[in-house]
């Protein structure tokens, strides 16, 4: 029996290389994009392909990477979270709000010891994630709308906390992780790498990770298999909010200040990283590996455009076009896979 199984599995693979490649297009296309972009910028600019610049790219994508870990879970479940950037922002502001600021900062804040400030900030983002989760699962608001509301709510809390001012100080450990480095490697890159690795391990090797894929693959079947679909969807919304919060705290330390609208570009960047990497918007396909490739594509693109002589206003358009191309590939990959599975 074992031998016939191998023979058949081999048969499945031996249908020819073309169908195999087609079914793997989701993973191959982003990788080819990355190689192409890197080669292009390396040829176009002598300052691009250097070790220093690689460090720059890694640092530049770290905050996006931390936020994208949680978002990968959400998109794998065929949901979306539009509140990630706002939650990152409010969490970053909260951790500063609970830290003693210099006397010239005119915010009526509540200074706490560093550990307590971090705890309060984490609690806040987890709470906001929980509100997302309850809205989605208990009330039944589509995640697109629920998190759109949360985007405003979190921005509103941010505004109330800083009242148009800028705070600078965050607890020492956050400052270190956000802007320090060890042996030449920035801590923020290490944190991002650890969180991406953790996310990958959870998705690949744990029961919860399997549930995430199955709920994304066929929600009805997951329910008829006796899975607690609402609990799983709720959990991914909370995970997303907490990852965003961590990204926000380290981001504030990285930028050196906490203020309103500081993270606005991270919403699109994080969604782009996950989708460009090839995780299916329809759920159930993709993963952290894809997200990492997506992060590099965005990072190389953003960084490389600074190294070549290009109109800085054109950069925005180019980014938009690359995102569009990735979405087209994403939808095609889904279709090709369905065809291959027939």
């Amino acid at each position: 029996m074992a031998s016939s199984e191998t023979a058949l599995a081999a048969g499945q693979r031996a249908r020819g290389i073309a169908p195999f490649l087609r079914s793997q297009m989701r993973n191959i296309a982003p990788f080819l994009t990355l190689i192409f972009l890197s080669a292009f910028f390396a040829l176009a600019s002598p300052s691009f392909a250097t070790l220093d610049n690689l460090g720059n790219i890694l640092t530049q994508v770290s905050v996006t990477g931390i936020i994208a870990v949680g978002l990968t879970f959400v998109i794998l479940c065929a949901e979306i979270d539009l509140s990630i950037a706002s939650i990152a922002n409010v969490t970053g502001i909260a951790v500063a709000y609970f830290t003693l600021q210099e006397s010239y900062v005119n915010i009526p804040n509540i200074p706490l010891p560093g550990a307590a400030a971090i705890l309060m900030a984490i609690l806040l983002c987890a709470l906001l994630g929980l509100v997302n989760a309850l809205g989605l699962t208990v009330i039944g608001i589509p995640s697109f709308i629920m998190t759109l509301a949360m985007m405003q709510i979190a921005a509103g809390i941010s505004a109330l906390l800083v009242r148009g001012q800028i705070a600078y100080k965050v607890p020492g450990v956050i400052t270190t992780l956000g802007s320090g480095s060890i042996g030449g490697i920035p801590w923020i890159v290490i944190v991002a790498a650890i969180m991406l690795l953790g996310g990958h391990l959870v998705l690949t090797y744990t029961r919860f990770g399997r549930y995430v894929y199955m709920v994304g693959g066929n929600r009805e079947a997951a329910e008829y298999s006796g899975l607690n679909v609402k609990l799983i969807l709720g959990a991914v919304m909370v995970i997303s909010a907490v990852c965003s919060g961590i990204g926000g705290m380290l981001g504030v330390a990285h930028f050196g200040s906490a203020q309103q609208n500081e993270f606005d570009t991270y919403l699109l960047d994080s969604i782009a990283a996950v989708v460009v990497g090839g995780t299916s918007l329809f759920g159930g396909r993709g993963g952290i590996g894809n997200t990492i490739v997506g992060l590099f594509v965005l990072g190389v693109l953003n960084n490389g455009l600074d190294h070549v002589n290009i109109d800085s206003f054109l950069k925005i358009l180019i980014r938009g076009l690359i995102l569009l191309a990735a979405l087209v590939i994403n939808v095609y990959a889904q279709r090709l896979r369905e065809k291959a599975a027939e």
Partner: protein
Amino acid sequence: MPEGRQPILELQGITKSFGGVEALRGVDFALSAGEIHGLVGENGAGKSTLMKIIAGVHSEFSGRFLIDGKQTHFRSARDAHAAGIAMVHQELSVAPDLTVAENVFLGNQPTNRLGLVQWRRMAREAGEQLARFGIDVDPMSRLGDLPIGLQQLIEIARVLFSGARIVILDEPTSALSPPEVERLFSTLRRLREQGTGIVFISHFIEDILLVSDTVTVFRNGRKVAETAAAATSKGALIEAMIGRGGEALEHSYTDDLMLPRPSDSAVVLKVDQLSLARSLKDISFEARAGEVLGVYGFMGCGQQELSRILFGKLKPDGGTLAVEGKPKTFASTAAARRAGVALVPESRRAMLFHQEPVYKNVSISILDRISALLLKPARERDIARRQVEQLQIRPPVVGLDLGMLSGGNQQKVALAKWLTFPPKLLVLCEPTRGMDVGAKNDVINIVRDLRAKGLAIIVLSTEPETVLSLADRILVLKRGTVVREFRNEPVSKDRLLQAA
């Protein structure tokens, strides 16, 4: 094929394989105008694959494909449609949120010169078409609000009236009640008079014999027989299908069958005064360990809703449930599963993950029993291999994507999900629908095994044969109430149909 007619459709030496498994091997097939051609064969014999090739769904295959004697190659279902070929697939494909009229005219709504939809005309014509089919519904009502059987009839009507010259019906009668089947057949005969070529696939061999001119039998991807319907019999067809003596295999249940004395073993499930909006009224019954309780009724009698309540998918408006004496209100399907209830719904699509391998489908419901935090893929594969062997699932490859299995084998996987750690109460909806004789017998044997192990089993079906072949005690459901219970007495197909 009747003598002397030119076939409108001809296939020669068709071979098609999926993932190294040959689904069709050198099959010839011909259909002429004004012919109803019946196809029979076990699940996975290749009937549906051949039809999907004809309908342009599968575009890669080897062999010759001729229409009106000219060689053709369809690249998509759209090409086939343009050539006048229409197909009703095994699984319902309607738009439940659109109106009946929109569904009938799906894709070619009548429009005026400005390109706007002519609603009144569409409603009138849809109503007329459906009336010819004996369906009397408001064309402007939402399709999803109608019973499944009616939805299926409307889908068939749409295809039949689309003006296609070649119509393929894959298991069209499985969700229909006897009078609906009769209506379908008279429409098919009318279309035959008009020169339409019709291919009719069914597991109901009586239906095939009743309506077809020619019958073709498939086995293991080969065509094993082609004969005039008048020149064959049910026994002969079954024998050709499964390749062993078939007479005794399918019981017709026209004679009385004696139900056993009610069991006095422990009550596993007690349902009291259960009600749900317009679907169910004051349902009360018990299910006992080691007993199969059959629930029979026509489509839309409330069976589906009842099964969903038992598994925590729907919440009842009134009444109580108790499992082993403990009152339960299931907040979710997960709560029902933890309480020891398992459900196999009638639709495979609702139960299985087509893009995932077989072993992940088998293990999904028991993951929390075999792994605390980390997955154990080797253990999952072992468990799946054991189930695949026990239920004789083909091909026996647990790493194959589920979507590559035939319908009947997928149905077995749906059952396999629950069998590693048997539940206390197993609820089966239409467990043998769309299955061939061999697979049906497999399922019957599995259910009997489980009964012997002391499970309480509830079988809900709209097919009298299914209930009669499995149940020790039978409830008849009619418009949401229990109208009759058969126990310790003779029962037959006639008696059941009369009670409903």
